[in-house]
């Protein structure tokens, strides 16, 4: 499959060049090629007018290309200084000079106003600081062209502002910056030039002046996005989910969910808005019993479920669309049919006395594939051979197929094409109308706004405000997400 297809991109010095595209459009892939991590099957790359052949990141670095990856490339047990100098160490005859390294790092952070403690271990740093380290890493290697792959996804608006100032400073210094994102607002704010990608192709290059957000959106997704899923107003009924003062720790044993309380009622969609990394995943894990809770109560239909197993919760009427499809949603090696019964494979009609009943499984699969319009050759083909959108539809089908009373939907449309997005949204809404209670957790504010009946804003692991979706003010929510009270 082609992740990038006949892409032409032109970046000049002293410019912020925004690369815009929905998830899976091929932005990272393109940049990985520019950075020498992937080899293009055809085409050439010119740098300073000269054609260059990039075999490895080292070649890119030598040319002065630096990249801050979507998923940070930092080594947790090592210190900030060690991470930054790695590969270009300060040393005499092979022996590290750590004091000198730290010194250099300090100078660098002075110069660009990126404060970090060189002796700190990466594992101890916040995401925002880790990103600083990444940028310093690139600058330390003398990057003149700096690629930032979705740098804002994990930042709060303040941090984003900070980042923008840095970016402008860099450009002022004569460097070039490629700024990858799929958030329209950001583009118009920093970009000098904008290139839009869709499904691995460049659909156009423009500037903030020429085209307004709406136009960009159209270019991005191929046609006008419906900012609202048309849906009748909710008729909320009895309370299904009730969470009181929930406290959950993350893997680094820091408080991720902090005294969080919320409730979801029959026939409503409760949307949790928030910047990535504010405790969304930990919240979902805790609700599904995938992560132990430190304190607080979780009740479903007034029944305490905090110490039930995931299995028991699923049987008890919970459904989960995991935020990370490939990690938690599907087993790529197993067949579509197997994946569709992944969470109730072990009882009638799919199994009798430990023996799996393949006819029943197949019939059921065929039915779901039809209702949820999953595009495939056969229910027996491995899920890995499906496109992400269809993989995601499969996950949704599995969860809604079991007719749960509470659906916990994490990033239900991440990395999915627009057609699938609409389809999935419509499914969720229609289930709501049949009385399903939905807890929607998404870092796509637009998704939250368009789907939810009520919206809770998540910040630093707390629900800082709950407001009615009707006429909710986008900017106000933005501020709340940023921690402004």
């Amino acid at each position, binding site marked *: 499959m082609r992740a990038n297809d006949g892409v032409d991109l032109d970046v000049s010095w002293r410019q912020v060049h925004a690369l815009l595209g929905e998830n899976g459009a091929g932005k990272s892939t393109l940049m990985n090629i520019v950075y020498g991590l992937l080899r293009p099957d055809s085409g050439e790359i010119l740098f300073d007018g000269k054609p260059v052949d990039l075999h490895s990141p080292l070649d890119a670095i030598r040319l002065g290309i630096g990249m801050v990856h979507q998923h940070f490339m930092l080594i947790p047990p090592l210190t900030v200084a060690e991470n930054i100098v790695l590969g270009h160490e300060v040393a005499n005859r092979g022996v590290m000079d750590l004091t000198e390294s730290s010194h250099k790092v300090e100078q660098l952070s002075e110069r660009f106003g990126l404060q970090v403690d060189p002796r700190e271990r990466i594992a101890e740093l916040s995401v925002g600081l880790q990103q600083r380290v990444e940028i310093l890493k690139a600058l330390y290697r003398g990057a003149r062209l700096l690629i930032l792959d979705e740098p804002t996804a994990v930042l709060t608006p303040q941090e984003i502002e900070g980042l923008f100032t840095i970016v402008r400073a860099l450009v002022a210094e004569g460097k070039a910056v490629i700024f990858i994102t799929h958030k329209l607002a950001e583009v118009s704010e920093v970009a000098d030039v904008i290139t839009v990608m869709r499904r691995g192709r460049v659909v156009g290059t423009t500037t903030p002046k020429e085209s307004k957000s709406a136009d960009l959106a159209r270019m991005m997704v191929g046609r006008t996005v419906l900012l609202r899923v048309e849906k009748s107003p909710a008729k909320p009924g009895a309370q299904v989910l009730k969470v009181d003062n929930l406290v959950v720790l993350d893997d680094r044993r820091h408080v991720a969910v902090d005294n969080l309380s919320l409730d979801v009622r029959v026939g409503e969609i409760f949307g949790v808005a928030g910047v990535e990394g504010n405790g969304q995943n930990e919240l979902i894990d805790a609700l*599904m019993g*995938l992560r132990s809770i430190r304190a607080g109560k979780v009740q479903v239909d007034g029944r305490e479920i905090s110490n039930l*197993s*995931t*299995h*028991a*919760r*699923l*049987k008890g009427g919970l459904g*989960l669309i*995991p935020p990370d499809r490939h*990690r*938690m*949603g*599907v*087993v*790529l*090696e*197993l067949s579509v049919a*197997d994946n569709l019964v*992944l*969470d109730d*494979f*072990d009882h009638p009609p799919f*199994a009798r006395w*430990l*023996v*799996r009943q393949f006819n029943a499984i197949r019939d059921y699969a065929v039915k779901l594939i039809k209702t949820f319009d999953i595009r495939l050759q056969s229910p027996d083909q491995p899920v890995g051979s499906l496109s992400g959108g269809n993989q995601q539809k499969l996950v949704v089908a599995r969860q809604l197929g079991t007719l749960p009373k509470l659906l916990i939907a994490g990033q239900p449309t991440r990395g999915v094409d627009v057609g699938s997005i609409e389809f999935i949204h419509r499914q969720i809404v229609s289930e709501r109308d049949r009385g399903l209670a939905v807890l929607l957790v998404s870092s796509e504010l637009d998704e939250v706004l368009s789907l939810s009946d009520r919206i809770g804003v998540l910040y630093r692991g707390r629900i800082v405000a709950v407001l009615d979706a009707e006429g909710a003010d986008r900017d106000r929510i933005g501020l709340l997400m940023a921690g402004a009270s």
Partner: protein
Amino acid sequence: MAGWRRWLLSAVLVPLVSVICGFAVGAIAIVAAGADPLMAYSALFAGAFTNHNALAETLVSTTPYVLLGLAVAIGFRAGLFNIGAEGQFYIGSLSGVFVAYSIRGLPGIVEVPLAMIAGMLGGALWASIAGALKARFGAHEVITTIMLNYVSFLVASYLVDTPGLMLARNVSTPRTPDIDAGAVLPNLIPGSRLHLGFVLALLAVPIVWFLIERTTIGFRLRAVGFNQNAARAAGMSVGRTIVLTMALSGALAGAAGIVQILGVNFHMTDTVAAGYGFDAIAVALLARSNPWGVLPAALLFGALHNGASFMQLETQVSADLISIVQASVIIFVAAPAIVGWLFRLRRAPTETVAITQREVDAPTT
């Protein structure tokens, strides 16, 4: 259609070619050792098949390889690398032989199953230690099973050497008492050592295949093997599955141990086991973790094991030669790229099968 061609390539052709290459490498070693490969191999073949009783003897050594190969394979399917089959084989023999010599005078139909159950339980429990350590603490099973192997040898030598424990009275060799006559597995061919255990091993193949491919246990096991997170999110208990898998694997290894006692040795000595458990890893790899594949693979290893001594007798080439053949075979199986390169197979199957090639989780030790 391309699907089954790939299957043919990866499940039949590659192993076959690998075995051939393995023997080729062995031949080089024989030449280097100043002997004639043809003579050596024909002696090996004669010792394995054509000599009087040789075939029966080959099947005798095939028996433990089948059961142990299944044991390792079942672990592979759940993403577990059970290097401990050797130790589980040993503990299984211990617990089984204890029952087999303790009970007296019951009919075989009673005694044999009792001994078998004891042996399988022993192996299962011993293996679950490693399983529990991984489930509970994330201790990597490869390391723990290696360590537990040694512990099991020492436990056995302690029990068998210590008067009042399992040491038989007035025997000149340190060993357990002989098992009760009723517990002896009947011979299949009079005058040979081929015993009912071979049939039991054959039966185990479809049973294990059914377990893995057709039951919910097998499904759970495979799902966990492929993607623990997804399995967990789907409500499966990864920890319990790991322990269960190790227990099943250990039970099969224990069965191999006790079958060897009931069919071949009739008592247990304090000498460390034959190393079947380690060869079994190779068997499972060669079988690509497919229960049916275990049969031919085990037969090959049984033949090598059995033919080796005759080869040494006839050509003075050390029986250790078969280790070279075995090692080479695994290399070619585990790195199909080599075979593909050797034979210019376009589209050589580099896709990962079982454990031979994969992104193994980092040991969370």
